[in-house]
């Protein structure tokens, strides 16, 4: 039945698109824009116009129908408002830094697309929140407060409490505070892990590229073998063993997890830094430095590293996203960052059943999405920045 309606809709749109092109041609006296327009493009324009109109219509629908909240409309409004708010914030942010700061940063922000500005803004905001979490958060992350399951929104009529703007969780901890501390724990641990992965993978990769020979062969084959096991699966296997080692000390599991993920991810870093290093090693200035009699440390850190800076920085962004998502997924599965610490993956899992109340209590269903959204927002932001950096450094114009 639904399929029939969809087919009917497509057929109607077909006619509308044809008429649109025809009218366009006759109204503009066969202007090239309409004359050369393939039918598919006309159809695309009509589809986009329809979606836009439907969006506006849906947005303006009443939120309340005789006392029954229309959850679909509410979620749609929140999504649209959130999107517009972020876009506006990114625009203002870019505008400010186009006029404030040193010549270099001003120039940088002038060439920046809005998505990249959004990414930079998100990264700065997250860094700020995670560093000053203790000062910003209204309550402690493990503090159990008065009542459990207070609804987000702070509206007493709907089961909220203005003292806890985002409500409390199932054992009465403030969700806002836990989200803020989650930034510190999740982002902090992911950052440390990525740095460790880069330290291990990067130095071994450059070493393999500079020295070559049996060391290169040994490391490369070992990395090949490790990379043949899918990352998340391997991490889960090793964490099983780590939990046995840690016994009842659950904080140790977190430490083991950092090392496990760092080592698994360092294989990917090794591949890249070896490839980049091999291209640099054959350069004349390396030859010159070798003839000058410079040591290995000087070669790697003073000659090679500065020249491998751009691809490694982009890789750092991507790697951070991978590590961050892996840690979030592990926590979501219940084997990552361990309970008393607030962490977004665990929060999503703990609050996930509230999503089933969305139809009659939209506010309740927001809680699990907030933590998941916090994860997505950061990775999206980092990816936007990396995409822009890669685009800029590759010099692709088309």
């Amino acid at each position, binding site marked *: 039945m*639904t399929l029939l309606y969809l087919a009917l809709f497509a057929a109607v749109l077909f006619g509308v698109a044809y008429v649109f092109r025809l009218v366009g041609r006759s109204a503009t006296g066969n202007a090239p824009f309409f004359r050369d327009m*393939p039918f598919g*493009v006309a159809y*695309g324009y009509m589809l*986009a116009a329809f979606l836009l109109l439907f969006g506006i219509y849906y947005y303006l629908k009443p939120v309340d129908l005789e006392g029954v909240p229309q*959850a*679909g409309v509410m*979620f749609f409004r929140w999504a649209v408002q959130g999107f517009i708010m972020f876009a506006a914030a990114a625009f203002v942010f870019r505008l400010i830094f186009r006029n404030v700061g040193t010549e270099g940063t001003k120039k940088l922000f002038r060439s920046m697309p809005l*998505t990249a500005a959004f990414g930079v803004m998100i990264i700065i905001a997250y860094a700020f929140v995670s560093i000053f979490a203790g000062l910003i958060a209204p309550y402690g992350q493990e503090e159990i407060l008065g009542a459990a399951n207070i609804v987000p929104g702070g509206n007493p009529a709907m089961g909220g409490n203005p003292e806890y703007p985002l409500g409390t969780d199932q054992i009465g901890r403030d969700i806002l505070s836990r989200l803020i501390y989650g930034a510190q724990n999740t982002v902090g641990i992911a950052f440390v892990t990525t740095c460790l992965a880069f330290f291990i993978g990067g130095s071994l990769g450059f070493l393999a590229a500079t020295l070559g020979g049996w060391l290169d062969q040994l490391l490369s084959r070992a990395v*090949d*073998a*490790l990379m*043949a*096991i*899918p990352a*998340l*699966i*391997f991490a*889960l*296997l*090793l*964490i*099983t*063993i780590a*939990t*046995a*080692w840690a016994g009842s000390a659950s904080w140790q599991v977190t430490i083991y997890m950092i090392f496990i993920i760092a080592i698994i991810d360092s294989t990917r870093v090794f591949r890249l830094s070896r490839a980049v290093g091999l291209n640099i090693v054959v350069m004349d200035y390396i030859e010159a430095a070798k003839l000058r009699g410079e040591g290995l440390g000087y070669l790697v850190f003073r000659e090679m590293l500065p020249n491998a800076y751009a691809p490694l920085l982009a890789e750092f962004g991507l790697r951070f*996203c991978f590590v961050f*998502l892996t840690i*979030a*997924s592990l926590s*979501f*599965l*219940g*084997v990552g960052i361990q309970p008393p610490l607030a962490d977004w*993956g665990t929060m*999503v899992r703990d609050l*996930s059943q509230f*999503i*089933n109340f*969305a*139809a009659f209590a939209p506010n309740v*269903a927001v809680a*699990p*999405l907030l933590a*998941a*959204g916090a*994860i*997505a927002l950061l*990775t*999206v932001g*980092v*990816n*936007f920045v990396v*995409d822009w950096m890669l685009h800029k450094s590759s010099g692709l114009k*088309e």
Partner: protein
Amino acid sequence: MSGLLRIIVQRLLLGLVTLFVVSIIIFVAVNALPGDFAEAILGQGATEEAVTAIREQLGLNQNAFTRYATWLGGAVRGDLGVPLSQALFAGNFGTTATGTDVITVVDQIIPRLKNTLFLAGVSAAIAVPLAVTLGVLTALYRNSAFDKAMNVSTLSAISSPEFFIAYILILFLAVLNPVFPSLSNIFPGMEFSERLNRTMLPALTLTLAVTAQMMRMTRAAIINLLASPYIEMARLKGLSPMRVIVKHALPNALAPIITVIALNLAFLVTGVVVVEVVFVYPGIGQLFVDSVKIRDIPVVQACCLIFAAVYILLNLTADILSIISNPRLRHPK
């Protein structure tokens, strides 16, 4: 043709060697468990007989090399041992777990592996055509509003965690508009349409996760070729942009596209873990996570081996297909 055959055989052998090394890594990792494995799983209240029974059961009284050989030999014959939950039961009650009514690891894994392959198959059937079509369209209308919107949305889809996409889909397609069920409880003997209906939400989640990557690669591969002289020639002949891309650019961009599709299929089979947990889909990923939580080592080991085998096989396929589709790789200088 014989040259091609030789390359394929060569790659297959290489894959086997890799799998062998992977099995060693898995075995060594598992044997890094502290202390005696039997004591570790039975806990403190274990009687001496129970510990001895488990040791016998798992062959822990032999040296590591013999145990590895036994495990690998069993795995090749399709016998991956008995789950610990079964062995534990047998150990505590003084019976052996080798009777006829014992559920082995293979019995546990096979039906779930089938379910997972079904899920991956459904997602691939939606994702691959969608990704290639969108990739061609974005390459055709590059730098238009459509292209930019697709760029932003695919980047967002790639970077969002799977459970975020999953819950958004549950919210809109299961809770607010009950189109599909949010729990995918599949059982054998189910009608195909019902089964498809219940698989739809996890399949859509996976589709969103992999389509973006494949689409971006298709677009990049095609755009890379647009500066080539033969594309210029085709354009100057007066062919339509669509024809230039589909007839002239796409066949030459096939190698990278096939590679990325195969890699994403590998992701589909291994990345299902989180999605299966969210939707309670009875696949191998769910089994793996449950076994990890109760430290059921034989099952964890077996799942790991199977995941690695699938992963290696799909990577191999990517390799071989890209060699077949590109004659230049067939005759390396």
